[in-house]
């Protein structure tokens, strides 16, 4: 750290600079987190006059709660589909865009646009495109001689429909991460590989690009997984978790329990589970970042 000439500061100065941030951190991050854990051991209901400790009862109830088991399973399926698909497509797009100079900026902008656009608005547009009667996608299916599908009301396919929207939204994000990774590869490595006989695309990719991108890939996978775990908007506005819980996901279940049924204690326990998943992924992320920093 560049501490050599940093100044020992007086207490009033330090307080002036850091007190607002520290105070807000306690009120909006540390405090709520502690409250969350405490609440998860209670039967608190919003507006109820009493509150009592129930130990692990909320966590025990979860294991027998069909909605919760379906919800966690759906969330894991969603993550397991969206992450590999959007990382692979993001990598593919980055490699193709990077391979040549022509229309580079156009492609990058086109693929990145879904990342920027308000997801809730675009989800509504997808809902229109997927309409069984007048949606463009079913017009397309019919034109190809296929049966129209009720993408959002058929419990067998609704989760996959939401995965599709999730992939559409995250490809561009992963693409720019990979493009940044590609720019960081020193050209000398390709020259060295060419000297060793690796002139064709496949060999160059295997020998240079892929190994050099490995840390970026791992990083991208973790970030995409964290974002996929937070899926909420599309479910809330398109399916409400239905039909018959077929698209129920963790954040949506938490939202319903807390603000539909006002069962705060139970919802808090669900948030703890959600947080557990995110923290495991974050731990991997920290580990990766650390390795990257050491590698540099």
């Amino acid at each position, binding site marked *: 750290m560049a501490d050599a000439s940093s100044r020992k500061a007086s207490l009033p100065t330090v307080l002036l600079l850091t007190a607002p*941030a520290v105070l807000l951190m306690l009120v909006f991050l540390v405090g709520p987190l502690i409250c969350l854990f405490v609440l998860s051991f209670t039967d608190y209901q919003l507006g109820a006059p009493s509150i009592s400790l129930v130990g692990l009862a909320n966590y025990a109830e979860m294991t027998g709660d069909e909605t919760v088991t379906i919800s966690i399973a759906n969330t894991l399926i969603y993550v397991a589909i969206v992450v590999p698909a959007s990382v692979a497509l993001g990598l593919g797009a980055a490699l193709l865009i990077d*391979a040549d100079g022509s*229309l580079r900026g156009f492609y990058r902008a086109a693929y990145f646009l879904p*990342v920027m656009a308000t997801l809730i608005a675009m989800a509504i547009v997808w809902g229109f*495109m997927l309409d069984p009667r007048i949606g463009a996608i079913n017009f397309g299916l019919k034109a190809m001689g296929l049966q129209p599908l009720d993408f959002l009301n058929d419990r067998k396919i609704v989760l996959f429909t939401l995965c599709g929207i999730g992939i559409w939204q995250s490809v561009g994000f992963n693409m720019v991460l990979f493009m940044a990774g590609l720019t960081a590869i020193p050209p000398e490595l390709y020259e060295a590989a060419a000297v060793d006989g690796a002139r064709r695309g496949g060999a160059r990719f295997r020998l240079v690009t892929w190994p050099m991108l490995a840390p970026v890939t791992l990083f991208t996978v973790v970030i995409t997984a964290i974002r996929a775990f937070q899926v909420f908007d599309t479910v809330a506005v398109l399916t409400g978790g239905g039909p018959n819980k077929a698209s129920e996901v963790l954040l949506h279940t938490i939202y319903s329990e807390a603000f539909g049924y006002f069962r705060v204690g139970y919802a808090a326990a669900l948030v703890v589970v959600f947080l557990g998943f995110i923290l495991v992924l974050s731990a991997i992320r920290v580990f990766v970042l650390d390795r990257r920093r050491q590698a540099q």
Partner: protein
Amino acid sequence: MTGHRLPGSLRLVRHLVLLLGTTVMLAPFVLMVATSLKPKDEIFATRFHLLPQRLGAAENYYEALTQVPLLHFLLNGVIVTAAIFTLQVIVNVPAAYALAKLRFRGRTTLFGAVLVCLLIPYQATALPIYILFYWFGLLNTYAALVLPFTISVFGIFLMRQFFLGVPDDLIDAARIDGMSEYGIVWSVMAPAAIPALVAFGIFSVVAHWNDYFWPLIAVADHSLYTPPLGIAFLKLNGEGTAYGPLMAAATIVIAPLVLAFLLAQRRFVEGITFTGLKG
């Protein structure tokens, strides 16, 4: 980097594959705008035309703006995102400076706390903060939409990293001129950190303009609705199948960010990705 590097045939394959992808990525945007221009009978027609045969734009946009007070929602969006970013700068930049350039007791602890808090997704603290606001009667106010985001551990982290690279000579010169530490933050460090502040600003504005989860919890009063709440309300409580006005509303809601993005692409891509650290 702009020259051609591929032989002719491969260049064609590259364009074909990328254009196929582009079609998928842009299809929703094209359909959204096209549908917002179509009269009702064409939207519900049994034959599909991408382009409108007759223009129905006026009635769709009129409906979108009058069925719900969409302009008011946009104004709320501007107020909330601007307030959040302004307060984020006021709260977090001085702390970042202290962490980067001053020695004081508890600095390591504070930085450690910042790193730990970086891992917490905001949905995890939403429930306790909701209860806190419920007790203090703050739900259904602009404050409820803004206050939880005034602390940004991510902003502190980002700005600290940037400040570490600002030469100490600059600060020492200001001190010799008799400037206070607080003055140094705003007249020396902040101007030097404009690129980082812009990136953080873009990240912050995009995240909060698009946020649906917290506003959905924090406000119920229509007069406080942000654009995402407004358009979801139009979808869920209006005529669910009035697609013309709905697409017009969607176009209006995404327009400000998309236009800004098209004008300053590079900055946006930087702002969103080097903030990719924050999941």
